[in-house]
């Protein structure tokens, strides 16, 4: 139960290319299109995969979030639309709609657990899994990218609220529960 003395930092990561892709996630053409854009295969339920130049997150049974370099979202949408032409799908650039934060430090999990009803125990939310939930009073998604390294996505309009909430939670220190 040793209390961590080091801090958790909260950083706005700035521009990040993001594409929402809705479609049949089991469809071969879609899987191929996602691989072409991100170099990654489609993850299973709640899965998160990070590659060299992008990442893919499972958002719901018919929705993925693709993370691409900032200037590549438009071309990613175009690539997806081309690959899935004639097939029911929706690809849309949402880079500007979201804000992404890095929450990093030894008790980053606890900072999130102060804000979200999700089970943040390491056994319940391991690396490689995305959790969509609420952060205080706003919708959010987060995932772990390594020990004490977390990424949090919220809507851009509430970025100020989310950042204040995360910073406040970080400032008030470790709980010592995980």
């Amino acid at each position, binding site marked *: 139960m040793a209390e961590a003395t080091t801090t958790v930092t909260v950083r706005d990561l700035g521009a990040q290319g993001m594409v929402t892709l809705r479609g049949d996630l089991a469809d071969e053409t879609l899987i191929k299109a996602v691989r072409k854009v991100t170099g990654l295969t489609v993850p299973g339920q709640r899965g998160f995969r990070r590659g060299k130049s992008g990442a893919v997150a499972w958002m719901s049974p018919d929705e993925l979030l693709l993370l691409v370099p900032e200037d590549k979202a438009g071309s990613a949408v175009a690539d997806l639309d081309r690959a899935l032409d004639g097939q029911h799908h929706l690809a849309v650039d949402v880079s500007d709609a979201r804000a992404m934060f890095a929450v990093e430090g030894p008790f980053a999990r606890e900072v999130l657990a102060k804000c979200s*009803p999700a089970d943040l125990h390491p056994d319940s939310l391991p690396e490689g899994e995305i*959790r*969509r*939930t*609420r952060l205080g009073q706003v919708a959010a998604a987060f995932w772990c990218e390594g020990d004490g390294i977390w990424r949090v996505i919220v809507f851009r309009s509430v970025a100020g609220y989310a950042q204040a909430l995360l910073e406040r939670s970080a400032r008030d220190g470790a709980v010592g529960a995980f």
Partner: protein
Amino acid sequence: MLILTCPNCGIAAEETELSPGGEAHLHRHGPGSSDGEFEEYLFLKENPRGVHFERWRHSHGCGKWFHAARDTATLQVFGTYSAQTTEPPQHIRDAITAARPGWRWRDFS
């Protein structure tokens, strides 16, 4: 505060992540329906003490709708299942029967 497992994303979500959507398995009556049918569709809802079927949305989560079968008095949850169905699936009915033999809800039993 309830916990319901969203069948769409597999999360055992607590109530603050969920939004209630009222009674399940309503039959929509649109233009051409009688006043009686329309009234029943809009206003005459089941309000049982016991077995009940409801619609929920994992609104602060995957955003998807699902169905839940639970006991309104004891809050026992018999199961959650797809929103894309007009009636409770057999495994849910079996789970209810195991706990509440002889149950009835509208035309379901």
